[in-house]
C-alpha cells in the first residue's frame, strides 16, 4: 500500500501544486465575499477531494497507465487503498494547513492590528471558533461522502462518458436539500429549524461534528471495501 501511496503522491504532485494556488484564490474570495474565513477549510477540503477523485480516473486512462501500474509489484488491492489513503491524507493536510493558518492569523489579530480587510474576516470569539470547527467537519463529511460514492464507480468502470459527470452529479446531489426544502411541509420545516437551533449550541456542535466525522469515516472505509471488490474484477 505504501508503494501505491507514494506513487500517487508523485503522479499528483503537479496537480496538488496547481490546486494549492486555486485553493488560496477561492478561499480568499470566499472570505471576502462572506465576510469570514469560517468556510475556508471546508471549501478547500471539498475542492481537493472533488478534484483528485475526478483527476485520478483521468490519469488512469492516460496512455494505459492503469495497466502498466499493474505490471509493477503491487496488487489491485494496494492500488485502491493507496488511492483512498492519498486522497484523504492530501485533502486533510492541505485543508488543515488552511485551518491552522486561519487560526494563526486570528490569534495574531488579537494582539496585533492587522489590515482591516484581513481583520474583518478573521475569527473573533468562541462562537466563531465553534462554527469554524463545525463547518470544517461538514466539509470533511461532504467531501468524503462524495469520494466514497465516486471512487468505486471509477474503479469499476474507469472514466467513461457517464462516469465523467459523476463528481458534478454528486455536487448537485449535495446541493439538492436546499431545493427540496422549498417543497417541505410546515411541520417538517419546523423540525428542521429545531435541529438547526440545537446544532448551533455548544453541545449540538459537538454532536454534529462527531457525527459528521464518524459517518464519513465509516462510509469511506466501506467504500474502500466496495472499490477493492470492483477493481479486483475489472478487465483492463
Amino acid at each position, binding site marked *: 500500500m505504501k*508503494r501505491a501511496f507514494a506513487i500517487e503522491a508523485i*503522479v499528483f504532485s503537479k496537480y496538488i501544486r496547481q490546486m494549492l494556488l486555486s485553493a488560496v484564490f477561492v478561499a480568499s474570495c470566499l472570505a471576502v465575499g462572506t465576510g469570514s474565513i469560517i468556510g475556508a477549510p471546508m471549501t478547500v477540503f471539498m475542492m481537493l477531494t472533488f478534484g483528485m477523485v475526478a483527476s485520478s480516473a483521468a490519469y488512469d486512462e492516460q*496512455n*494505459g497507465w492503469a495497466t502498466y501500474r499493474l505490471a509493477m509489484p503491487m496488487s489491485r488491492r*494496494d492500488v485502491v487503498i493507496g488511492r483512498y489513503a492519498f486522497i484523504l491524507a492530501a485533502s486533510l493536510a492541505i485543508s488543515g494547513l488552511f485551518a491552522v493558518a486561519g487560526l494563526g492569523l486570528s490569534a495574531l489579530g488579537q494582539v496585533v492590528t492587522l489590515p482591516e480587510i484581513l481583520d474583518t474576516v478573521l475569527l473573533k470569539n468562541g462562537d466563531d471558533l465553534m462554527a469554524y470547527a463545525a463547518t470544517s467537519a461538514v466539509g470533511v463529511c461532504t467531501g468524503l461522502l462524495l469520494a466514497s460514492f465516486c471512487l468505486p464507480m471509477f474503479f469499476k468502470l474507469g472514466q467513461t462518458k457517464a462516469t465523467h459527470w459523476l463528481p458534478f452529479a454528486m455536487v448537485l446531489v449535495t446541493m439538492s436539500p436546499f431545493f427540496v426544502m422549498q417543497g417541505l411541509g410546515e411541520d417538517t420545516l419546523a423540525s428542521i429549524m429545531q435541529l438547526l437551533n440545537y446544532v448551533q449550541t455548544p453541545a449540538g456542535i459537538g454532536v454534529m461534528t462527531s457525527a459528521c466525522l464518524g459517518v464519513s469515516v465509516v462510509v469511506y472505509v466501506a467504500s474502500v471495501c466496495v472499490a477493492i471488490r470492483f477493481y479486483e474484477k475489472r478487465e483492463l
Partner: protein
Amino acid sequence: MAAGSALIEAHGLTKHYDGFTLNNVTFSVQAGQVVGFVGQNGAGKSTIIKALLGIIELDAGEARILDAPSAKLAHDARAAAVKEQIGVVFDTVSLPGQLKVGEVGEIMARAYRSWDAQVFEGHLETFGLDAGKTAKALSRGMGMKLGLACALSHHPRVLILDEATAGLDPLARDEVLDMLREFVAAEDERGNPQNAILMSSHITSDLDKIADQIICIDRGEMVFALAKDEITDMMGIARCRAAEVEDVVQSGALVGAQPRMLRHDYGIDLLVPNRFVFAQMYPNIPCDHMTIDDYMAFMLKGSTGLEGANQPDRPQSAISKGDDR
C-alpha cells in the same frame, strides 16, 4: 527455481472477447532464451502478454512466471512481489503525460525495492533522455527508450516487451538489441543462464538478430512455434515455374512435409525445409534463404494445394512445429 527450468509457462491459454477468442495457446520460455512473438495486428499477442502478467483473467488455461501463477500476480501481495523480477515495456509510453523523466525514476524507485538509480541514470545518458522533459513531450522512440530504461533498471530476471523497439531509429535498435543480448546472456555463480526475454515485434529483422524461438499468433491461435535458426538457416524459398512444382512435390525434396506455396504472376514460391538438399537435387531452380517474414507469409497466406489462386490453408492443428510444413 531449478537451473534450466522455464521462467515463463503458458498452458492452454484461452480468453473470449466479443469478436475475438484466444484459443488454447501453449508455450514456454526457458532461462537464457529469447522468444519472439509475431503476428498481425489484433492477433492476440498483447492479450497473451496481459494474461501472463495477470492483468486479465483467463477463461481457461494457466500461466506462470518465475513459478508464480499469473492469475495471482495482480491480486495477491506475495505473488505481486514476483513482479520485482519482471521488467515490462508496453507498446506506448504508459505513463501520465505530465510526469517528467526524473519523476518517472522516482516512481520506479518507490515501486521496486531492487531499483538501481545509478543504472537508470546510465541508461538515460546512453539513450539521451533529458530528466526534465515530460513524458508527453517525448517522441514515440524516446518514450520507448524510457520504458526500456525503466524495465532494465531494477535487475529483472524476465523481460516482457510488447513492441518495445517500435519507433526506435536503427542505431538505437542495435544498441537496445545489444543490451538485450547482454541481459539474456547473464549467468549465475554456477554458470547457468538466469534471465529470459519474451518479446513481440513487427520488426522481424530484430527477432532475426536476437530470438531463439519464434511463435506466430493469428486470430487468437498459435500458427507455429519454431526455432529461429530452423527457419533462417535451414529453410528456403524455391522460385518455381508452375510446371516444375508438381515434379518437386513428388520428388521427395520436401522431405515428407506438406507442401506450402505462394502463387505469384511470375511463378510459384515453394517452401523448402532444407534448402541445401534442395539445391543439390534441383540446381537449376533458384532457392533463396527464408526469412521470418517469408515463413509467416507461407504459413498465413500460403496454400497447400496446386489448384486455384492462393487460398490460405491454415494448418488443421493449432501449432506447426515443423513436421507438417
